[in-house]
């Protein structure tokens, strides 16, 4: 397993952050809920290929991302639907549409696999972007861990609030220790695949803030809360994300 042994200079990385990245890589490598470890590592690999994909570059420049036909520059391990999902999420996420999502489902991709692959892709993008920001080389992808996917599927799913099914707000909130009231959509977004939601939270606690810190406006970081939210807001705006 790779180690994320960050250099001490010039920017020493907090131990909890390094550990969160190690944990994230173990999560990517292991058998998932609907995908094997090998498939999950292939998803991670595909996010890196997407950055150099000629077809994605062309699409990004086009007025409509669906106007450009042509195959992605991709590896051999994943079906076309997953390749398209990973490439578009990586390179042009702000212009994804529900009709595109529905087309993937019609082409045979399940909502569960969609959400799991999305979860793995965004972990990879997140950890890679951290390295990029600090001028560090990318961590080698982990070796896949053998084993069968768990098939865990929540029994309290609701449809119609987002493109993907999500867990019912009240029950999820109670389990996650939220105060009464609706759980934010961005937390429910991956809840169709609970293991991806747990991984999302673990990484977010280290890279951003824990739920308690979010609520209390406290920060035990070198950045104060307004500085954290300024960076968060700017990154969201640069990605043209409305959320």
């Amino acid at each position: 397993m790779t180690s994320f042994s960050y250099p001490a200079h010039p920017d020493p990385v907090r131990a909890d952050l390094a550990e969160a990245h190690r944990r994230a890589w173990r999560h990517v490598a292991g058998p998932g809920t609907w995908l094997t470890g090998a498939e999950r590592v292939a998803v991670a690999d595909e996010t890196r290929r997407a950055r150099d994909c000629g077809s994605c570059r062309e699409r990004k420049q086009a007025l409509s991302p669906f106007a450009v036909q042509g195959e992605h520059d991709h590896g051999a391990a994943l079906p076309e639907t997953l390749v398209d999902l990973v490439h578009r999420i990586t390179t042009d996420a702000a212009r994804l549409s529900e009709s595109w999502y529905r087309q993937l489902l019609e082409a045979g991709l399940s909502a569960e696999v969609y959400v799991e692959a999305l979860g793995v892709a965004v972990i990879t993008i997140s950890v890679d972007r951290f390295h990029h920001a600090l001028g560090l080389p990318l961590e080698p992808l982990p070796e896949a861990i053998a084993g069968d996917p768990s098939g865990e599927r929540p029994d309290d799913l609701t449809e119609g609030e987002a493109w993907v099914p999500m867990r019912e707000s009240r029950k999820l909130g109670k389990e996650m220790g939220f105060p009464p009231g609706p759980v934010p959509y961005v937390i429910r977004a991956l809840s169709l695949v609970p293991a991806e939601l747990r991984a999302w939270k673990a990484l977010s606690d280290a890279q951003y803030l824990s739920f308690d810190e979010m609520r209390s406006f406290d920060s035990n970081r070198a950045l104060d809360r307004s500085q954290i939210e300024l960076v968060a807001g700017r990154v969201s705006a640069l990605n043209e994300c409305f959320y």
Partner: protein
Amino acid sequence: MLRASIEFSGEEADLSGIADGAKAGDAGIEHGERLTAFADAAVASDAASLATARDALRQAAGSAVVVDAAGVIGNFERMVRIADGTGIPLDGLVTAMSSDIREELGLEGFESRRLARSAGLAGLLGPALRRVVLPVLRMAGRRKRSGA
């Protein structure tokens, strides 16, 4: 969250640089200009400008700030894709609390906003909710800072 944290901190901030890089200054936040420049360079793929922005931030605020900012950048590269990739709407409370500032900053014009589900009529409650919640946040921040 930025607006809420600013109200809580009691700071005066100009958020116009969030969506419009040309207007990005300190935003009234300590090291705001350097943090924004670091985020801009990290999201773009220009290694030279990134190194310059990183060095400037380190010199002004220290290595720990650079690392924390890199963590937030990594985190929100993930968050935006989760939001965009699952088609979640804006939460009702967020819509209500931020409709004025979202309009002002042009966030409502983003393509991703058009493509996501609508959160309903929450925006109509915005002015009333803001009149109640923002002063409460300011008061809570004052009490915390004074140790009460």
